């Protein structure tokens, strides 16, 4: 199965505070409230532009900084389905998996596309096509794949405990 996605392109070292500001982290709770502030301090037009199914394409070290999971959920609840970056902050990488958002490490990705371009994911062939070039998706360990397949860590545990 192939899916096509419109991308939003960003540079290097985009930190968690730019994706979701710290001043909101203890008071905003609903999905709508959190999504409304996604990328507020980096790209104030993002929330108006983003459509369900869109993806992020970024440079090095996307999501460095804080552990705050809303830096992933603000994007997820805005409709973002996957994030492609040259590299990720380690905590952010785990938070993506735990929220069921696939983090895709791809060198040079952000130079191949501009915001508004289309990216194609081939889920059967496990490839991604952007800027006219096709790349193999980095393989995932079985434990990580299981979390993504369940839609995230909490849904996976919920399903496990529902069975017992």
């Amino acid at each position, binding site marked *: 199965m192939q899916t096509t996605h419109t991308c939003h392109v960003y540079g290097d070292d985009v930190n968690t*505070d730019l994706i979701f500001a*710290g*001043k909101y*982290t203890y008071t905003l709770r609903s999905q709508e409230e959190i999504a409304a502030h996604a990328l507020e301090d980096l790209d104030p037009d993002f929330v108006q532009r983003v459509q369900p199914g869109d993806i992020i394409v970024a440079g090095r070290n996307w999501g460095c900084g804080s*552990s705050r999971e809303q830096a992933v959920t603000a994007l997820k609840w805005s409709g973002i389905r996957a994030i492609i970056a040259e590299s990720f902050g380690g*905590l952010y990488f785990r938070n993506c998996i*735990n929220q069921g958002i696939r983090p895709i490490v791809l060198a040079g990705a952000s130079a191949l596309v501009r915001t508004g371009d289309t990216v194609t994911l081939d889920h059967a062939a496990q490839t991604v096509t952007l800027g006219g070039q096709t790349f193999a998706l980095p393989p995932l360990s079985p434990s990580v794949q299981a979390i993504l397949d369940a839609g995230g860590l909490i849904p996976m545990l919920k399903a496990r405990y529902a069975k017992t």
Partner: protein
Amino acid sequence: MTGFTFVEKVLAQAAGVTQARAGDVLDIRPHRILSHDNTAAIRKLFEQIGVPRIADPERLIITLDHAAPAPTTLHAQNHAEIREWVQLQGIRHFFEVGRGICHQVISEEALVLPAEVILGADSHTTHFGWLGAFGMGIGRSEVAALWATGELWLAVPKTLRIVLNGALPEGVTAKDIALKIIGTLGVDGGAYRAIEFSGTTLARLSLDERPVLPNMMAEFGAMSAYMPPDEVVFDYLRQRTTRPFTPLYPDADATYDETVTFDVSALEPLVALPHQPDNVVPLSEAYGQPIQQAFVGTCTGGRYEDLAMVAQVVRGKRLKARLLVVPASAQVLQRAIATGVLADLLEAGVTLGTAGCGACMGNHMGVPAPHEATISTGSRNFKGRMGTTDAPIYLANPYVVAASAVTGCITHPADLV
């Protein structure tokens, strides 16, 4: 067979396996699970899982520190939900508003010991490397999962060894070492890796200076950071707990991903310019930059010696910029009172905040106005970090922050006398 790094050893222990190598994926059982003002949100995630009770409440540590005391009704509601949860689940290691910042309080309470593992919903959980422990930040979902199952998967990271040699010159601190490392190797210099510090500098660093290094490795992208614990650390812990511990050290023939060496004996005070902690220049290049606020605090720069350094600079002087001091803990504050440091600070015109995270992340008092510049002993100068995007943040050591408060612009302390 070559030897093992610290993380290979400590994570094997925590997983209950005989040995582990970088790249292995382990299910580990941490000794401690930390959360703070984010606990109410984690509770909501935990409740979705469908497990009625926390597996082992004794392993949990909860502090109210990030917006403490509550600055708004919404923050107060958040705290109230956390207190209710603490009661409901019988969580004993709970620290109220005013006790201080989680990492400082847990160290003072000796709740983490050498070779133990603490995972926390806070990126600066790397802090506990100063005790020879493994500390790592995790997400809220992971904390909820740990409450339910007691276990979490981790890939054992490769290790970057950072060798620090020499004695720091007068007026140069551990903060400058951290800025030097991050400025040289970049904010992703430690990405996906653990850090092991070694070298002759470590034993020369005081107890208050040591945590700065592993703490700030969060700004380096590191998963965790370790310092080999010595008698100074053991004495600190023995004064605070009777729990036994066995420290863990890397093998001499361990395999490192990379080794980087710094000689700190010629290091000068450094400043991280807005908006990244690796945007580091010598103090001379930031000299004269006007600032409206100076902030001394956070888990990186709010311990007793940080306050004492500030007092040394501002004693008997008047301030041209606002100087906000937020002690890292109530014990830090008590010591500053006992030694007269606090009196010197107040005499100079310092504003004193409640022990906690303070203005670090724009959640609490001391936020700057648009176009006001702040110089801070904290660890993060991200754009918008303190609440508004057009308020630039400079990072520096406590002497420089204090001197800058005296003159109203970024200043070398030596120029005040």
